[in-house]
């Protein structure tokens, strides 16, 4: 068995197709002679499963990935920046009810800039200026000019 990335992709889509196909049986039956709500998903899932199976077969004809296999640590180092960005964005969303868009946004942009750009005092100063200008600027445009009620959070009651 050749364990390349196409193999894992095909496997993922096969499992997904199977799970979703089973889930279509939980959907209610059609009414008034209309199209069943399960028909369209099944119409998608059947070819998706077939194509996934084809990809699985093709993946077995290929050799293992040419790229050197990375250990978990190497893999984490390789994708460090995107993982950190996703992590910070996740925290930004989770803390939104407390920090709100303004404070949360300031914290998120400053931290993302510093994580990606570096922590030297000069850079921190530059990042603070960029954060203040863009986050406060955008926040002001949306709330004051466009009249959008952005999440204010429990820390700072603006409205």
């Amino acid at each position: 068995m050749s364990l390349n990335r196409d193999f894992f992709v095909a496997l993922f889509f096969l499992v997904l197709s199977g799970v979703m196909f089973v889930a279509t049986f939980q959907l209610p039956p059609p009414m008034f002679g209309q199209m069943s709500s399960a028909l369209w998903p099944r119409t998608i899932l059947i070819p998706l499963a077939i194509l996934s199976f084809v990809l699985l077969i093709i993946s077995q004809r290929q050799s293992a990935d040419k790229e050197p296999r990375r250990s978990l640590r190497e893999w984490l180092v390789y994708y460090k920046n995107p993982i950190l960005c996703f992590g910070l964005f996740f925290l930004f969303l989770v803390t939104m009810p407390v920090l709100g868009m303004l404070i949360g946004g300031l914290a998120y942009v400053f931290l993302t800039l510093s994580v990606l750009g570096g922590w030297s005092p000069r850079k921190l100063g530059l990042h603070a200026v960029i954060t203040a200008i863009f986050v406060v600027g955008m926040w002001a445009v949306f709330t004051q000019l466009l009249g959008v009620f952005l999440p204010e959070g429990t820390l700072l009651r603006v409205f």
Partner: protein
Amino acid sequence: MDLFQNLAAAAPQLFTVSTMILMMVGTLAGLLAGAIPGFTIAMAVVLVLPFTFTMSAVQGLATMIAVYVGGLSGGLMSGILTGIPGTPSSVATTFDGYPMARGGKPGLALGIGVWSSFFGGVIASLILMVVAPQLALIGLEFQPVDYFALIIFALTVTASLAGDQMLKGLMAALFGLLVATVGSDVVFGQPRFTFGIDSATQGFAFLPVLVGLFAFSRLLNDVRDPEAAHKALGGHDAHAVNIDYIHSAKEVLKRWGNVIRSAVIGVFVGVLPAAGSTISNILAYDQAKKTSKDGKDFGKGAVDGIIAPETANNATAGGALIVMMALGLPGDIMTAIMLGALLIHDVIPSPSFISDEPVIAYSIFLAFFVANFMMLALQSVTLRGFVLVTKVKMYMLTAVILFYCALGIFALNNVGYDMWTLFIFGVAGFILRAFGFPIVPMVLGVVLGQIAEARLSQVFARSDDIAIFLTRPWSLFFLLLACFSIVFPAYQKHLGKAAWTKYYPSVLLIVMALPVFMMPGIIRPVAAIGMAIAGVVMLIRRYRTEPQQEEVQQ
């Protein structure tokens, strides 16, 4: 006559001081965004979208079109001055633009690029005004079954453009369609695939999905490499120069044949689903090289080598708008975003859109026309801004834009759920990219999913007979085209090597003649007979020449 009456009705809506200012700002933003390598035009239009929520439909769409036109032209600045194309649509511009600039004529090279973009855009907007209403009349013949087949064709042709990754392209398109089924059933509004999560009944709004898959994942891809993240956006080569407008205009007008040919190529490619300016600029460059007397000068700073790609990429926007306006279907990311903007303003694009909403439709035509003049006027101003922007580092842009994406997506419906959708599809897009999956088919799958299901339900509401897919001429036409588009990547790959590729075009003509022959009227059946005869003649010629070639080889 209708054309002029409708234009006269739309003009007062468009030519207001506020709309003109917004369009100028949009053009400037587009020019700057297009000039920044790694920052796509689609991303610029996505970022402008939230600002249009509070505008009228005409103002909002005019602003977005201005960004689109500006973005298509902005790419030439970095392409010519630094050799790094600002957008994929200006890749071919660098082939001759950069050598000419390095040869001591950067002002002339920029001028040729700017004028070519301008003429490409103007020609395309004239074609748009004439063709779109006519195509919409054909679109009125479409029944739900034809629409459904058209969507299938759009998805297969999008997947086929992934070339060697055709299989993954098709899987991505199907995955996009599957994502669109989550939430509520289109027919009854009953929850579907929510797995007990209440908020999931809202489904996934397509703009957060689109921004997540396309912009969010791409930005994080750009900062994956720490070294690349610290690099300035446009290198350090960019410097301000004066654009030589007069000399360059003369050079472009002397080559009007190339301008018209490239504009037509651009519009044609734009009409094809998902084939966009990334393809048209290279195709037009290739054609210019083949037909030019000075073909040997290409790659060394040939004037025709700048004219062709720049004319074609701006003209492509006109072609993409033709399909969206006439049939109500987005063919690429740009028009998908435009479609989203129309839906936000409660305007539902369909073949009757131009006749139902003539003021909005003709305002879009006019806005596209006017934006090209603005682009011409603002290019010099932007050049100085571009030199400043290129000094910004990639990671700074990423951090600010990620926040802005969240802000804009929240403003869409004022619900936090959309930001989670953005995050989830940002992660999904990043992983799919890493696994070599093309993103565009998936985005189109998400956009077209609910439309396809609604059309399919209309088909089954009328009849259970699935033979209707084969007995309706337009449906058969699009389904056959879909089949040929699936084989197309193999045809391209084996062209000239495998014997069957010789017969592909002739078989295509003969087979497509059948649905055309089934269409009403006289012209189309007669055209079908012509297609069939041409196909048979081609087939016989190919068949006869093959043994002769074998004899010669022996």
